[in-house]
């Protein structure tokens, strides 16, 4: 592990405000996660990887974009660890550098168009949340 990676891992953990040392590896977060099947790295591994400083693994994981922020893992963790907060913090780092936004404004009309064809009513809330989650 490189030194700067270790610092980055520490930064991520600090930003998330969660104490990864409290994790007792019970797996309840992964047991409760509704997006488990779509994830390559699962919530409990997120905690372990953050603890071990494996930032690269976290940053390139697909899971980063699969968390629904439903807080089920946060609510049900018996030790008060907050895997969702951790995932969000990693995401923050993934998006921070310029031009790395996962979603750009020019896609919005496409969304609206595609969905509108089916008579959909995309609420503002969805657009705003998605942009807040996918871009900085």
């Amino acid at each position: 592990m490189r030194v700067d990676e270790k610092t980055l891992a520490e930064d991520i953990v600090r930003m998330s405000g969660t104490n990864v040392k409290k994790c007792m590896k019970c797996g309840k977060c992964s047991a409760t996660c509704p997006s488990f099947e779509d994830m390559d790295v699962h919530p409990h591994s997120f905690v372990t990887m953050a603890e071990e400083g494996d930032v690269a693994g976290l940053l390139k994981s697909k899971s980063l974009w699969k968390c629904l922020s439903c807080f089920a893992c946060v609510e049900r963790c018996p030790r008060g660890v907050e895997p969702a907060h951790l995932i969000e913090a990693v995401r923050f780092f993934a998006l921070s550098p310029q031009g790395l936004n996962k979603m750009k404004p020019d896609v919005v009309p496409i969304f609206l168009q595609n969905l509108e064809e089916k008579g959909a009513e995309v609420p503002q809330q969805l657009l705003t949340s998605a942009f807040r989650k996918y871009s900085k």
Partner: protein
Amino acid sequence: MEFSYFPGCTLKTKARDLDETARLAAEALGVTLRELPEWQCCGAVYPMSREEIAVRLSSVRALMAARDEGRPLLTLCSACHHVMKRVNHDMQTDEGLRTKANNYLQPDKPYAGETRVVHYLEMLRDEVGFGEVARKVTSPFKGVKIAAYYGCMLLRPSAVMRFDNPENPSVMEDFISAIGAAPVRFPYRNECCGGYVALDDRGAARKASRRVTRAAAQHGAEALITACPLCLYNLKENGGGEVPVHYFTEFLAAALGLKTLEGGLARAS
């Protein structure tokens, strides 16, 4: 009973029904909602990182405005409620965040989370009382089986939200009983609908929403109610259309005889 009212972005556009029926019902129940004069977006999602100050500021402004008006702040959309309540909690408990937010906003009187954030359902339960709601109902939905969909935002994390028992909530079921209908409890009422991921990964949202609607249907629900425009969208658009989905306020306004329920649900009475 007077509240400062924060409608939020969607209630002024795609979720006008929610706003309109909520206002009508509130008036009929003797609750005065005073819309905050200059509200801005709540931020839509709660910033989980403790470093993000700017995205909390619009919520703090609304909270502070309510404080200055001397009233509790009433919310309706689940996401708005979630963000307001949590940012308010940050302002109460996180000294670093509090200092930074106040430094940005430079208010006359620093804000430290004095405002009480109340969700419309909490208002019905704790201020008006479901007994009173039931008394005012003129067109009860007798025999109609309604399932309540809570979603995530109202309940979790319970340590901050303090909304209801996060795993076995009852406020919406009590509401359903109050309007004369039969509540249907189903296990996925507090599981995610797919949320914002619907935009990026429709498949994921479909999977999540279908699980909810299917379970509701299986337990015999004739309708689903929710407080959240995004939940409503997902359950409707991605949920397979098995069960009609409405805002709970639509049912409330209809039961109080203020506005007929759009989509016209057959009433047993």
